[in-house]
């Protein structure tokens, strides 16, 4: 049930991001009205400090957040899964090295490092994606490592090995089905935290300055003190709600339905 709700939410946002240019009433980068207008029939969510239509910004803003978070999620999961498998499967020296790398990287606080890296790499989407992926993989690696070790202890692996199964066969036939669910959940978590990081960085003004996202909208709304007037109702509330709903959808999608394991 909760999984289905999550799926509906995420699909809705994906559609919003895909169709945004055609359903947005205005070009969000064009001045289409007086600045600081209240919501009206012409501008359903009013206009911002430079006269851009807020509703159009909101629709188009979904694109950057969704694009960055999904790409970072894929990259993170790929790196994490490979590192986790290497730590479990590699030669003793390689395995020890990879494990040490995981244990070191996992304690590095992500957001400060990303903020500091943003100072050196400049503000482009590619840099942002690479930096986020570079600091996010250790969590997945650790989980995949642990799960792989658990699976490899089972007798059916020994049995498969004894009849001459190679490592790739075992990985494909026995390991992958065992870690599949786990990797999916971790992927959703990675997308979630990437979306939050992107929004946070854009809010700080450290994201891609040429593309609008929900974080960018909040940056300008806060920089122009939207909280002092009623403008927060249509300028601050909508982008934050969209972000929160998207994150909620991802969480629900990744949450195992635990009604079956209820012990009460």
């Amino acid at each position, binding site marked *: 049930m909760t999984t289905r709700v999550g799926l509906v939410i995420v699909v809705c946002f994906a559609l919003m991001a895909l169709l945004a240019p055609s359903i947005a009433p205005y070009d969000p980068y064009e001045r289409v009205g007086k600045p600081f207008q209240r919501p009206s029939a012409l501008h359903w969510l009013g206009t911002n400090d430079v006269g851009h239509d807020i509703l159009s910004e909101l629709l188009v803003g979904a694109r950057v957040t969704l694009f960055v978070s999904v790409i970072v999620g894929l990259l993170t999961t790929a790196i994490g899964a490979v590192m986790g498998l290497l730590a479990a499967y590699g030669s003793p020296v390689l395995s020890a090295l990879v494990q040490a790398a995981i244990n*070191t990287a996992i304690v590095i606080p992500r957001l*400060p490092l990303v*903020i500091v890296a943003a100072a050196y790499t400049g503000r482009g989407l590619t840099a942002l994606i690479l930096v986020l992926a570079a600091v996010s993989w250790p969590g997945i690696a650790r989980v995949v490592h642990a799960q792989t070790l658990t699976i490899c202890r089972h007798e059916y692996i020994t049995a498969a090995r004894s009849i001459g199964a190679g490592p790739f066969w075992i990985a494909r036939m026995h390991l992958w089905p065992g870690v599949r669910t786990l990797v999916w959940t971790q992927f959703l978590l990675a997308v979630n935290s990437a979306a939050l990081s992107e*929004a946070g960085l854009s809010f*700080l003004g*450290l994201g891609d300055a040429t593309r609008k996202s929900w974080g960018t909208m909040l940056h300008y709304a806060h920089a122009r003190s939207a909280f002092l007037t009623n403008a927060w109702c249509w300028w601050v509330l909508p982008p934050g709600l969209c972000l929160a709903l998207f994150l*909620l959808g991802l969480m629900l999608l990744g949450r195992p339905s635990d009604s079956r394991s209820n012990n009460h």
Partner: protein
Amino acid sequence: MSHTIRLVGVRAVTFLATLWVILSINFLIPRLMPGDPTLFLLGGDIETADPAVVETLRARYGLNHSLSTQYLLYWQNLLRGDLGYSLQRRQPVADVIAGKLPWTLLLGGTSLFLATVLGIGLGAWCTWRGRIFETAGLGLAIGLNAMPAFWVGILLLANFASRPGSLPSYGAYTPWKDFAPFSTDWLWDVGQHLILPAVTLTLALVGDITLLTNAALRDVIPEPYLITARGKGLRERTVLFRHALRNAMLPLVARIGLMAGLMFGGSTLVESVFSYPGLGLMLYDAVIARDFALLQGGLLVIVLAVLAANTAADLLYRLLDPRLRTGT
């Protein structure tokens, strides 16, 4: 006692090894990034920069040495407690950080304490009251988790700090009022400034702690010792607090320790919403001003804090759990 000493020894070695790796990364990041750090000081444009000026700057920051000499100098300075000089603030980096640290500790400590008490309370209460309460409690926790903290902060500002006479929206104290530190007026002023940022951070943390408490309690609920406790005729409250929660606390200690470390730098967003003068805001200002000495110093302190908190939580975890006392 010898196993405890050995345990502390093993942890200390791991701590130092991780610290060495991270400090080396901290040294390498600016040097591995494309471009010369001095170029940022000159506006990032190599064509218009005067080569003589570039050379002077490189010499001043020790960048004309080989990488290995720079690395030795870096360690030499670190061990002497010299974190460099902040160009933006015209002050030694260590002094800048020392001025910011108390505010971050105050904000982070208050929020973490409130979130721990509220989260464990809510988690324990809703898990213990049965299905409907549990679903509602977990729903609330997941909802809170989904809300970006900086957005919650702006909403709180809009609702509680936008009218004259309401709560302050900016900073950690009123700058034009010269209250003597720790006088009653000063404490009142600082307390008022603390409310909104602390509530924001608490809301950001409380969801996680509630979910963790729920999961930890769920793990101990089927244990036979709870049936024994009930069978002895103990009150439900005693069963919850003395028997169930006490055992469920162990995994929580580790996670809350982790959060304590992250408080040092993870609150950049909240500090910047409220212009709260802590380490997080300092880091952000340093990025904007391209103050690389301050950036490195800030990251260093944050990483040190995270590492220390992790190690402390791990040790505490092992000391609290009698089952782990015999092994390493």
